[in-house]
């Protein structure tokens, strides 16, 4: 079993819809959670970073962490064709040097 599970998609939504992405994980020691956006043939770009449980909002993006269920989510409101990309979740245990555990990524396609 992988430590971090993420549905590969593709997830196709019409422009203006809400995109809902999620990851589940098995290691309860994870405390730091990130979402990245990766356009084709580009390096991943950090979108959101959250610590422990709760919600964090940044513009059209909302990240949620539910540590009791070992489940994290990313919501994109008012989706645009420019949001079409692969979204990767990542998580980390320690507040210092260490490894990041990534999900395999979900491909999102926003159709005009």
């Amino acid at each position, binding site marked *: 079993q992988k430590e971090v599970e*993420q549905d*590969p998609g593709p997830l196709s939504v019409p422009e203006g819809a809400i995109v809902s992405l999620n990851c589940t994980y098995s290691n309860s020691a994870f405390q*730091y959670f*990130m979402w*990245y956006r990766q356009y084709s*043939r*580009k*390096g*991943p*770009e*950090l979108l959101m*970073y959250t*610590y422990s449980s709760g919600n964090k909002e940044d513009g059209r993006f909302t990240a949620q962490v539910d540590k009791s269920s070992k489940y994290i989510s990313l919501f994109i409101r008012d989706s645009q064709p420019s949001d079409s990309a692969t979204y*990767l979740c*990542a998580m*980390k245990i320690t*507040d*210092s*040097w*260490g*490894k*990041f555990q*990534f*999900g*395999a*990524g979900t491909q999102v396609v926003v159709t005009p």
Partner: protein
Amino acid sequence: SQTIHQWPATLVQPVGSPLSLECTVEGTSNPNLYWYRQAAGRGLQLLFYSVGIGQISSEVPQNLSASRPQDRQFILSSKKLLLSDSGFYLCAWSGGKTYNEQFFGPGTRLTVL
């Protein structure tokens, strides 16, 4: 602000040839540095990470090696490339006030023929 550079952007190499990919970080000191490989349609595979000059940890046994000759320079090498080494290679850093955030370079697309 911090920036991370990788070169070359694209590389086509024959099987059995050597490899050297370079990554440099600007605007920070003593970063943690990472090399990942991303196969087509797949997630990120951590290859190496380094917490300081000359300190390299290997995650996957293979014919690749890494070196960190300077604080902000990370090099990925191979003496003889295999077909299976093809992929998208990404360098990343974390550190300073952001040990829990990782930032990626633009990547190198390697094709081994």
